[in-house]
């Protein structure tokens, strides 16, 4: 029995043993959030003293890029740092933060510009940021896509939260449609969705978290690496799919994978808080595990994973726990009645290929 997700619960569910911690010298990972929040070092230390006893870990961040704000720490910033350092344990961790930005700057764009100016960067970056695709200009999204390509060719892995509004909903006069989110819909990043335990108070198999963002881009066409997987889904569930007018079957489909996103414990402003949920929790959890795999690869003289998707999709879900139960939110109307897409065997637009079974994923990505 447990009363919410903690590092020990995550490490048990995803088969991380006490030996699964970082040790390579040139490995590092980073979190970036753009909420004008900051994390508090004392919160991280307290979190690790409360929840980090069962595994070797670091209790402080190696580097903060940007200026930390004052006053209260932010819940999301605390969550990001505490959980990437719980699965990516004992690995050098950076925090990109920006409360000190100029009033006329765009925090996310600032982070992108920074990546183009720093030759020494962590291999894995988890980012909790997203905007509705339809609120952004095509020129902006296309250019940011190129920035993601620049990061991928350098061997960086960019993981974006898939969002917490399920398929989303756009009310266009008479007709509604689902509402994809960017950068989650970019073909050049790895997007992470969310799951829940089937029994919220036990370490059981996982079902979808109904908030898990997912769907099909209206801007980017489906990349070659996922055509087979997505068409497989569309054929498998053809009879129960939402009306085709709600989504673009030729668009980049996301998320690519998932992890638990429900009912986390977080320490912020020295107070342990339960019930924190969102894909901004599942994303650092997956990021930390990719960092562990990078660690093992670097120790063997192999390059970092870099842009993961082409390789992830070739695994066809074998080293992940497939999530086949549950759906996520959609439009509240008589046609879809609040439901978006539903999980199915193999890839699906709620949890992607599923959640990481660490030893199997390590074996598959260490080849």
């Amino acid at each position, binding site marked *: 029995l447990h009363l919410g997700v903690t590092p020990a619960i995550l490490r048990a569910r995803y088969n991380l043993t006490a030996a699964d911690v970082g040790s390579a010298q040139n490995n590092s990972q980073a979190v970036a959030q753009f909420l004008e929040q900051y994390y508090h070092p004392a919160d991280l230390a307290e979190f690790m003293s409360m929840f980090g006893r069962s595994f070797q870990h670091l209790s402080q961040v190696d580097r903060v890029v940007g200026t930390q704000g004052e006053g209260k720490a932010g819940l*999301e910033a605390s969550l990001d740092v505490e959980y990437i350092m719980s699965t990516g344990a004992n690995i050098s961790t950076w925090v990109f933060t920006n409360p000190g930005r100029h009033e006329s*700057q765009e925090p996310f764009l600032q982070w992108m510009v920074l990546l183009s100016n720093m030759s020494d960067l962590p291999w894995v970056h988890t980012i909790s940021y997203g905007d509705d695709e339809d609120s952004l200009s095509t020129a902006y999204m296309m250019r940011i896509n*190129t920035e993601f390509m620049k990061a991928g*060719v350098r061997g960086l892995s960019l993981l974006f939260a898939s969002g917490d509004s399920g398929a989303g909903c756009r009310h266009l006069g008479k007709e509604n449609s689902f509402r994809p989110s960017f950068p989650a819909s970019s073909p050049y990043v790895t997007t992470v969705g969310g799951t829940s335990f089937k029994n919220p108070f036990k370490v059981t198999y996982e079902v979808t978290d109904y908030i898990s963002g997912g769907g099909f881009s209206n801007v980017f066409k489906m990349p070659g690496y996922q055509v087979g997987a997505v068409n497989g889904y569309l054929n498998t569930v053809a009879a129960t799919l939402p009306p085709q007018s709600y989504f673009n079957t030729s668009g980049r489909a996301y998320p690519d994978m998932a992890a638990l996103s429900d009912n986390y414990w977080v320490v912020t402003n020295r107070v342990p808080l339960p019930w924190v949920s969102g894909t901004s929790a599942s994303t650092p959890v997956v990021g930390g595990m990719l960092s562990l795999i990078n660690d093992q690869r670097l120790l063997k003289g192999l390059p970092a994973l870099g*842009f993961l*998707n*082409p390789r992830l999709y070739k695994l066809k879900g074998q080293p992940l726990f497939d999530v086949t139960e549950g759906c996520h939110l959609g439009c509240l109307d008589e046609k879809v009645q609040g439901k978006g897409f539903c999980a199915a065997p193999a890839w699906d637009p709620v949890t992607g290929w599923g959640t990481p079974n660490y030893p199997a994923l390590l074996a598959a990505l260490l080849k």
Partner: protein
Amino acid sequence: SGYLEYDQDVLMPQGWTHVGRVDPAEELELTFALKQQNVHLLEETLRLVSDPDSAQYGKHLSLEEVASLVRPSELTQKVVRHWLQSHGITSCLTVHTQDFLQCAMTADVAERLLPGSRFNRYLRDGLSLVRSSAPYSVHDDVHQHLDFVGGLHRLPPKGQDLIQKKQHSKTS
């Protein structure tokens, strides 16, 4: 023509309070995304270094090599810098890849440089922000050398509803 981001939403979402127009002499910092070269080659390179079945798998590039690949052309850099300097804008920072310029200028200069823009201050949860309430355009000569100008429209995300979202949905 001239509108680089004709399809960008410029409305301020709920929750932001309009404080008023920015003083013309107030300093702003805007980001100019210059057109890059070899984007298709970059995309092909990414495909090769990310495909486990490719001989190039894992052969990642350094920042310097990426810069050599995508650096804007001489013409683009010259046209953009001349356009900025002709408006008296000389305080700019570039990056390693030279495909971004971050420039400081007054609101008055910015509104002349980017016809149509109108800078206002907004407030949300103690956070102050300057954005344009109307779409901007650029001179025709520059249009083909820029992808977009950052700092006029997009807003920081709102994340505080992490816990509220769940509790709300739990109660519902």
